[in-house]
Every structure is written in C-alpha cells, then in structure tokens.
C-alpha cells in the first residue's frame, strides 16, 4: 500500500462523505428542534434529479440553487404537516420520501426529461437532450496545500462544494452550540413547552429548521450527481438518506462529529469499490454492498446499549408534535 493509494482512498472517502455531510448538517438542526425528517431520502433523490436536468440546461450554480429551492418547498410541506397539523412525523416523512423518489424518477425519465429540457432551454443541442450524465463540478485544487501528503488529496484537491461543506460543519456547530439562535433551536427540541413559555416561537423555529433540512437534503442530492456520480440511474440515492439519519445518531446530533460519521460511511463506500478491485467479493459483490446498511444496524444497536445511551441523548422532544394546551 503506497502513500498514493492511501491518498486516493482518502480522497474518495471525502468526496462520498460530503453527500452524507450535507444531508446531515440540515437534518441535525431539524432533529435538534424536535423534527425527524424521514423524507430526507426522497428530497435527496429529487435534488439529484432536478440538478441533473438544470445543470444540462443552465449550468452548475443554477442547479444547486434550484435544488435548494425545491428542497425548501419540500421542507415547508413537511413543516405544514408535522408542525401546523401535528401529524405523525414518521408517516409524513415516508410519504415525502415516496413523493420525492417518484417525482425524481418521473422528471429524469428520458422522454419527460427531454420535454423539460426543451422547455427550460430551447437552444440546447440534441446531444444535451439525450445526455445520460451531467457535467461534473470542476475540481479546484488548492495551491501548495494539495501537495501535503495524505491531507492534501484528502481535503485540498476537490471541487468547491466540498470545501464549502467542510467549512459549514464547524460554522453550523458554532451556531448551534455557541449562539442564542442555537440555544433556542435546542431548547425547542428539548422542552417545547418551556421554550414557548420563555417566549420562543416554537412553530417558527421548527418551520425554519424543516426548510433548512429540506434545502440541505436536496443539495446533498445535487452534490451526489454533480460531484460524485454523474450518471443518472433511477434510485440513485440508494438509501443514502436513511444512512444519513443513522449516522446522525452516531454523531450524537453534533455537526462537528457528523464530519467523522460522514467520513466513516464515505470510507465504507469507497472500500466497497476497492475491495472489488482486489478481487475480494468479486464473485458476490452483494455482500460488500450490504456493508453500509449492516454497519448502520450494528451501530444503532451498539449505541442503544445502556452505557452509550447515557452519554449521547437524543433531543427529548424528537418526533413529538407540540401544541399549546388550550
């Protein structure tokens, strides 16, 4: 195992890990405020499909913007059902996941995609209408830093979205744990009744975190197809949204620890491909493909063991609707 090999594995780890990281950053805020967004998987898929199409029509920047806006709309839908109507978050989240997956499969289907592309940009050449993959985000290696062994390829030889995500993690940690806004969000998730009595607008905070989670989930999907796997296939997210939800528990609802959780699952995914290159599991790659799901189940179980559970506690009001006693 040469240094270069290690470097390339680590580079891959980061580039997959950012999918998880983006998804978890928004979702941590939602869960800290008491909202479980089980729709993450579907919103991610929708983000991937829309950014796939809008990138071909209008380019990368617009694609991220459009995905973000759609994500916010899905977040609003989630908030309306769970916050205003106080409906069961698991049911609503599942429905949103189905809606997102369905819509993504629908709009990215070759015939519908062509129609949409023509409507978005009539000047597109026919090769673009037929394209099976999106142009990837350009890599922007940082001068000097990229040459540092190990850390260089891992952190400093990527596209700009990776850098932004890596900077967002500590920023969002700071906002959540060191500012009054963060305190408000956390108190709404721990004890909404008390927060309400102290004059915090529980409903407004939860609406905001839902929208944030929606936007980040969709952008995680956009990054998935623009930064990591440019070929569109139906079901492109493949459960990564659900794995994101598991790694948030592993990260104890901290944006900073989510970096490590994301890199862990990113690393598992990269090792899948590498193990297959080594001939391990070549005959039956399915067992290697099961790894992330199996590891998620195992970590969720280990974390539930008494001694661990005491150290990381979920937001007390997670997935519980709040209403004032009238």
């Amino acid at each position, binding site marked *: 195992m040469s240094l270069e090999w290690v470097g390339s594995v680590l580079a891959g780890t980061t580039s997959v890990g950012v999918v998880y990281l983006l998804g978890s950053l928004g979702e941590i805020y939602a869960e800290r405020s008491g909202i479980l967004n*089980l729709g993450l998987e579907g919103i991610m898929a929708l983000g991937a499909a829309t950014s796939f199409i809008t990138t071909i029509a209008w380019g990368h920047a617009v694609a991220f913007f459009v995905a973000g806006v759609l994500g916010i709309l899905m977040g609003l*839908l989630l908030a309306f*059902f769970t916050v205003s*109507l*106080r*409906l*069961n978050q*698991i*049911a*609503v989240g*599942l*429905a*949103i996941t*189905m*809606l997102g*997956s*369905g*819509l*993504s*499969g*629908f*709009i990215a*289907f070759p*015939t*519908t995609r062509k*129609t*949409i592309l023509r*409507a978005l940009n009539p000047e597109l050449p026919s090769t673009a209408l037929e394209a099976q993959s999106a142009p990837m985000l350009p890599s922007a290696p940082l001068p000097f830093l990229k040459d540092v062994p190990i850390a260089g390829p891992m952190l400093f030889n990527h596209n700009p979205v990776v850098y932004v995500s890596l900077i967002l993690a500590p920023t969002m940690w700071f906002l959540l744990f060191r500012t009054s806004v963060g305190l408000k969000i956390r108190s709404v998730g721990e004890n909404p009744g008390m927060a309400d009595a102290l004059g915090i607008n529980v409903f407004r905070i939860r609406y905001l975190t839902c929208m944030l989670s929606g936007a980040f989930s969709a952008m995680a999907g956009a990054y998935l197809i623009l930064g990591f796997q440019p070929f569109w296939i*139906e079901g492109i997210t*493949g*459960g990564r949204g*659900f*794995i994101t*939800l*598991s790694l948030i528990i592993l990260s104890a609802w901290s944006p900073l620890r989510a970096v490590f959780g994301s890199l862990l699952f990113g690393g598992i995914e990269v090792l899948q491909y590498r193990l297959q290159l080594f001939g391990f599991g070549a*005959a*039956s790659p*399915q*067992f290697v*493909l*099961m790894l992330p*799901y*199996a590891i*998620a*189940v195992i970590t*969720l*179980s280990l974390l*539930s*063991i008494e001694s661990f*559970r005491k150290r990381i506690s979920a937001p007390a009001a997670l997935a519980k609707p709040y*209403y004032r006693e*009238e």
Partner: protein
Amino acid sequence: MFMLERRMDISRKASSLFVLLSLLLAFFVTGLIFHLLGVDVAQFYSTICNVFITPALLLQAVFRSIPIILASLGLVVAFRMGFWNIGAEGQIYLGMIAATGIVILHVSYGAIPASLMLVAMGVASFLAGGAWCLIPASLKVRLGVNEVLTTLMLNYIAMLFTDYLVYGPWRDPEGWGFALSIPFPEYATLKYCGNPSTVGIVISVAVAGFVYFLFKYTKLGFTLSVLGKSSDVAKYAGMQAGRATLLGSIISGGMAGLGGLYVVSGMMGRLRPRASPGYGYTAIIVAMLVQLNPWLILPAGVFFGGLLTAGDALQSSLRLPFSAITVFQSVIFLCIILAEFFRRYRVVLRRL
C-alpha cells in the same frame, strides 16, 4: 383566528367521508402536478379507470394486489401494537427466498416429498418473513433500538441477499446465464391448487379473517392493542409486553413472507432479482388508508393493485415512466395523512 379543537370522538360515517374526500383531493393534486409537467391528465385518468372496468385488467389488478394485501394485513398487526414496521418489503423478499429454498431442497436433494411442497413452502416463507421482522423487534425490546431505521436498512439487505442468491448459488444452470432460479415444478406453484387469482383471494380472505379474529377474540390481540395505545399501561397491567411484541412481529413479518410466497409461487414460478416493485411500501399506504381495518384492506388492496396494472398500461400508451404511479401513490398517502388531521381536530373560527 383559526383554532383547533380536539374531537372527543367521531362517527364512522364522518370518518369514512374524510377518507373519501382525501382520495378526491389526491386525484385533483396528482392531476395538477402532472398537468404542470405536461402530461395529458385526461388520458392518465382514463387509463387508470379503464383498468377497473375491463374484466381482464381487473383480474390482473386482483392478481397483483395479493402480495400487497398480505403484507398490509401483517402491517395491521404491527401498527396496532405501535411497532413501526417499514420492513414489509424486506420481509416479502425473505418469504420469496424461503419458498425458493424449499423448492431447491426438494429438486436437488429430494428432501421434501412433492405432496407436502406447498405446505412446507408456506410454513418456511411465513417463518422467514417473521424472523426478518423479529430482528428489529428484539433489538427494540432488548436494547430499545428504534425500529424505523432498522426495518428500513433490513429491506436493502434482504434485496441484496436475493440478488446474491440468484446471481450466485441459486442461478439456474440451464437459464442461459440469466439471473433466475430454476423454474418451480408444477406442484410447487399455486396453479396446482387452482387458478392463482382464486387461490390468492382465498388466502387473503383467510388471513384477513385471522387478523380480525386475533384482535377481536384473543388475549394476545388484546395485549397488542393495549401496547399500541400505551406501553406504560400495558406494563402496569402486568402484561408481558416484550413477549407480545416479539410474537406480534413474527406474525406481522410472517404475513409479508406469505406475500413473498405468492410472488414466486403464484406469479413468477421462480425467483428473480428485484421481484417486488415495492409491494411492501404500497402496503403501508393501504394499511393507513383503511385505518387498520383488516376487511377493508381487501378492496383497498385491489385498488392499489389496479394502479400497478395501470402503470404498465401508462408505459405503453402515454410513454410515462412507472414512477408516475409512485407519484400518484405518494400523493394519496399524503392526503390520507391529511384526513387523519380532520378526524382528530375540528377547525373553528374564534375571535380572540
């Protein structure tokens, strides 16, 4: 200013009315979405209606509804005991695997006499589906692991395991390299007992009757319903909550397993990768649509079976992807959840 008032109780009639209205709303919203996406909505709906008025297609709808109905009946048991089993899809796959395993045991090793095949396959698929659901249930009972994520993860694992078997050790040596198991001998298919649709209907009605009986007349059923309302009450009443949850989960997953048996033994006659187009997820919508009433699952299941049938027709007539049906289903799901709100609350206009 709008205020919400909690309803003390609601008549059956009003409750059904809300569900019907929510279905109408779903038709409207889906139409709107598809109209915006440039689909011929009139033809979309006429294709769907066509399924329910053409006898041959209606029969196809019934046929395709059986796995949904069986899985959905299993979910009734899980949801009534407050166990969020989202793993019916994986439990269906385990049912398929177990049934195919019995066939392979029989054909390759002569382990089971031909006359007992269908019984053995039924028992095996029930137990396999049940065992798959028992994993998240025991993790929940023993360690308190939330079942939502674990049941979801196990779906992916079950699907990949099926892939492994049909691409690997169970691949038919005479199958020209396709990822298919050996074809089942005739006595291992439901054709052996009669028309597969009829057999399916008989099984579904019997299983619905079982679920009805379970909750109406048995102690286990009573314990499960109490558990679903409040696990604390169950604990203080001295009920064996843990044991009941485990038993209930076996029954729940087992029924989905029977759905898997139907897919391989009634529909395909062999095991294939990705043999379920999401029956287990559709089953969740069906169970919620009928508010966990086992008898109503039968017609509701046929409606969703009809949507799947329409999905095939839409692909050929309107050149729409199958996911058009997923969109429709999910909008129905959201509208059903919305109906739940109106069942629970009364919206009143009040001056502050």
